[in-house]
């Protein structure tokens, strides 16, 4: 694409005033929906994402059931009003792809062997989109799954790294996404550092790719702290008086 827009100014700052390795402000709340088994709300810059988790529950239709483990089903959906241009409601090629990669990322950390024949259903609703919604959705989904009390070996934190004006940029904004040279979303399991999501659009040199991976993983670790903080805030008060007991007749 022809570079008509200047994405980095003479001071080395980006169009929204961020430094190249600076994240947008992120806020996460866990347990926001009363009728879901687990839920999370996330604001990431101008992105607003709501996630609901149901289950584990019996997988329907029955042929989807796996007798050895639970299946993870994700539905990523952009609200019609989420973007500047109206989004035509219903599944499309992009939403189907994001649903699939998010489910596969979550399957890496959820201990699915505990729930044979069951399904864990994750609904990601993008209320407002401003680049990086797949990372925002995955980050919020991990919090919602943990909030649902589902056993997992780790959370998943995700962040995109891209390239614009020949420079690596963390957490691309909308203009950088549209007019930049590359966009690479990275999702990791922070405890182990395992990469559970990696995609790339555009091109980078090998050296840039290595550096971008490092930037994305460092940022994901910061996001992981926000995730655990959100989960701790949710239950800080609620379970202070808990005791074990037996059911009595």
């Amino acid at each position, binding site marked *: 694409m022809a570079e008509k827009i200047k994405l980095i100014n003479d001071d080395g700052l980006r169009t929204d005033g961020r430094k190249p390795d600076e994240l947008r402000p992120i806020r996460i709340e866990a347990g926001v929906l009363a009728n879901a*088994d*687990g839920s999370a709300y996330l604001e990431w810059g101008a992105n607003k994402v709501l996630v609901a988790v149901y*289950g*584990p*529950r*019996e997988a329907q239709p029955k042929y989807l059931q796996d*007798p*050895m483990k639970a299946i993870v089903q994700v539905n990523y959906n952009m609200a019609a009003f989420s973007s500047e241009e109206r989004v035509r409601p219903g599944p499309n090629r992009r939403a189907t792809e994001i649903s699939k990669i998010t489910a596969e990322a979550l399957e890496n*950390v959820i*201990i699915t062997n*505990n*729930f*044979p*024949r*069951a399904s864990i259903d994750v609904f990601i609703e993008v209320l407002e989109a401003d680049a990086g919604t797949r990372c925002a959705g995955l980050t919020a989904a991990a919090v919602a799954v*943990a*909030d*649902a*009390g*589902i*056993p*997992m*070996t*780790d*959370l998943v934190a995700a962040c995109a790294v891209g390239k614009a004006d020949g420079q690596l940029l963390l957490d691309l904004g909308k203009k950088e996404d549209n007019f930049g040279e590359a966009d690479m979303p990275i999702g990791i*399991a*922070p*405890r182990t550092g395992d990469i559970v999501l990696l995609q790339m659009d555009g091109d980078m040199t090998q050296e840039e790719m290595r550096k971008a991976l490092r930037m994305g993983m460092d940022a994901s670790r910061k996001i992981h702290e926000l*995730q*655990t903080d959100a*989960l*701790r805030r949710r*239950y*800080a*008060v*609620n*379970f*202070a*008086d*808990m*005791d*074990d*007991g*037996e*059911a*009595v*007749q």
Partner: protein
Amino acid sequence: MVQSDNVQRTDRVLVVPGDKLGDSSYKPGTGTFRKDSEIFAAQLGILNIRSGFINVIPAGGIYQPRQGDSVIGMVQDIGPSNWMVDINCPYTAFLHANETQWKVDFGTAGQYLGVGDIILAKIGQVDETKRVNLTMKEQGLRKMGSGQITKIAHTKVPRVIGKGGSMIALLKEHTGCRIFVGQNGVIWMDGEFEGMKKAAAAVQLIDHGTQLHGLTDSVREFLSGNGGASAGQSQPVGKMTFDIGIKRE
């Protein structure tokens, strides 16, 4: 707080999936997993170390059937000599006529238990694909002829019972109801209508309660504060569910 000898109380530490809890000097208990001789949290919950085991008492989540649990279920479907029972978990439980005190002729199961009937049962077996078998052979396990049920999070069952059964004794005393608490979070109660209304409201208060300490006192206040008909009007009690009407034999 009374402590028995082998109980080590940790100070209500809230853990998040992926948190490191200990090394190989402990054994991994419920809600944890072991990786390379280190023990990590698998669930969001409260850390509990007891007789060499590290456990996480889950803060939320759906009930998972365990052998020997007393549960309250609702008959969902009738077979020729068996019933399928909803026990508030991801899997429908199976109750065979041989596991009841009745002598059921083939094809006559419906004469003993109908769809919508409430039963008090025990979980006999749970196999590796989480097929749940119920039993009603033990003393006290039976069909409930009357009364109503209300549901709470199974993690709050110990709070409804209280230390040494103090909370449930309080509920019974103030409402004049007979109350059974299933470990699956289903509570059955029977008595005068006003008493049941009061008991259901108190149970929901416990379920949604966020008090740090002294829950028993606040429930006592609630039960004796608004006597008789006005019970539950001024208190935020959350949603109430009445799954069956009052039915007298």
